[in-house]
């Protein structure tokens, strides 16, 4: 057991070392969400009537943009397992006397930690832009961010387990990542959507993630916090089990 924990810790550490060494990747991954925040916040926010009772549009999408950072960063860090597969490093871990579950856990925890770090950087950028970030809700915010991130890293690992190379990545980008993002209520309330799209968006786990983040940041949410957390924990369990199962079947 001790050896498994040591392995998990070192695989986690590897993700962090790689993260801090690739400054350009950090900038690259924060740039798009930041542009979304600025462009949509000023552009669409400027078209809306000023109403002191509801939060302004920039404040409204801030939790959604945070969700975007987490979604992109964590799914990507799961799918990057493919690079390990392609460039050989994966073999090194697969022949080690460590259970595959530990390898998945180390990878998922490491990837999630780097995603949360990017989320925190984004929060900092938001503060610089004058968006109100209640510091007292930071612990709950980090917990929610971590929950969301581990689930999506695991989903990424599961996808990477049956993909052969990075060629399919564009498909995943278009048919998984963007729909998950747009249907999550990150940029607009779900109430006004046609029933079918509304139904689909209720199937999107990120919907509940963004809702929980919004509750934490703005104090208002669409669903009850118990529903949000229930769905997120359920999604976490399902994705990690699937990832561990698929990862175990990898033969070199």
């Amino acid at each position, binding site marked *: 057991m*001790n*050896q498994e924990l*040591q*392995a998990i*810790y*070192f*695989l986690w*550490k*590897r993700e962090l*070392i*790689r993260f801090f*060494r*690739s400054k350009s990747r950090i900038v690259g991954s924060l740039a798009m969400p930041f542009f979304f925040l600025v462009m949509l916040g000023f552009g669409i926010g400027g078209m809306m009537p000023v109403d002191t009772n509801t939060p302004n549009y920039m404040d409204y999408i801030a939790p959604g943009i945070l969700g975007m950072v987490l979604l992109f960063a964590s799914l990507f860090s799961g799918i990057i397992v493919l690079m390990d597969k392609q*460039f*050989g*490093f*994966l*073999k*090194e*871990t*697969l*022949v*080690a*006397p*460590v259970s595959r579950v530990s390898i998945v856990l180390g990878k998922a925890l490491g990837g999630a930690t780097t995603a949360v770090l990017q989320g925190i950087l984004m929060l900092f950028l938001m503060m610089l832009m004058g968006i109100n970030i209640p510091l007292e809700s930071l612990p709950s915010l980090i917990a929610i961010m971590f929950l969301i991130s581990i689930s999506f890293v695991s989903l990424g690992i599961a996808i990477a387990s049956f993909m052969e190379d990075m060629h399919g990545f564009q498909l995943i980008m278009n048919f998984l990542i963007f729909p998950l993002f747009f249907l999550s209520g990150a940029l607009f309330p779900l109430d006004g959507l046609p029933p079918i799209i509304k139904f689909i968006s209720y199937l999107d786990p990120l919907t509940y993630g963004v809702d929980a983040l919004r509750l934490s940041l703005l104090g208002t949410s669409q669903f009850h916090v118990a529903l949000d957390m229930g769905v997120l924990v359920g999604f976490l369990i399902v994705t990690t089990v699937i990832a561990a199962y698929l990862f175990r079947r990898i*033969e*070199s």
Partner: protein
Amino acid sequence: MLFKPLNPSILAMPIIDTKLLTKKFNGLTAVDKVSLQVKKGEIFGLLGPNGAGKTTFISMLVTMKRPTSGEAKVNGFDIASEPMGVRKSLGIVFQDQALDEELTAYENLDLHAALYGIPRAKREKRILEVLEMVELDSRKNDLVKTFSGGMRRRLEIARGLIHYPKVLFLDEPTLGLDPQTRKHIWEYISKLRKEHGVTILLTTHYMEEANSLCDRVAIIDHGKIIALDAPSALKDSLGGDTLLIECPHPEKLAKLLKGKKGIKDSRIHDHSLTLMVERGEKQIPLVMQIADGGKIEVTSISLHKPTLDDVFLHYTGRTIREETASGADSMKMHMRAWRKSK
């Protein structure tokens, strides 16, 4: 009796023992009923062209691929039912690089040592020990992406040894390296066995490599072992050396040489004579003496010793060189070049 005699069956127990090991991929048999034993402390070579099934064979022994049928034991552990015991017993250097280029040499080794359960207190000492052995201690804090191909190979060999494995698997350890670096790696491999007594199983399609490094060689083709013995015995089995003698009157010389000790056979051509002999280098002075005595002019003598390629040719009708000049090799080189340029 003061000492209990060692059980000879333990001493004789092979460290790798396969029985009818077979792997099929969609109808293609990559490894076909291979049974072989590798003894403790020997350097055992699997020699064969690309695609002969060498890597697949190793992949099964290191628990990366499941055999279709047959069984195998490594260090006494069954590869199917005791994979953790097998994994703890072995170190491996893969054919394709398996280092994390974004990490330093030290970090790569530290991660590996941790994965193999070496406690913190021992890790640093062992890392420095193996780095020193492959002469990379001065580069320990450099990122692996700044390393040359030879340095990466050495680092991988070091990594394979950190947890003191009983068996070290080397899959094409010198593929894609320049001749000088190749010699260097050979020296390390010989040193390993001498100083650490580790058993080494290596695959190669370079005959010189199998010839100069290995105690025993299994020649493998289309997933089957076609010959297995010490390199010298394999070569001797072909019937010894050949002397090619050029002279204006080969028939006269052949007559004088007939029946002399060590000369097994002769063939007369237009202006030359081919002799099948034992220990060809010792025959040359003898031949000269006899030619001198018979006043026969000899223009040149050349000695050809059989190589493992000749052995391969003898059993398969093809040479390993022909096989290897195929696209697979150059493809691999391209991949490597591409990775490095990234």
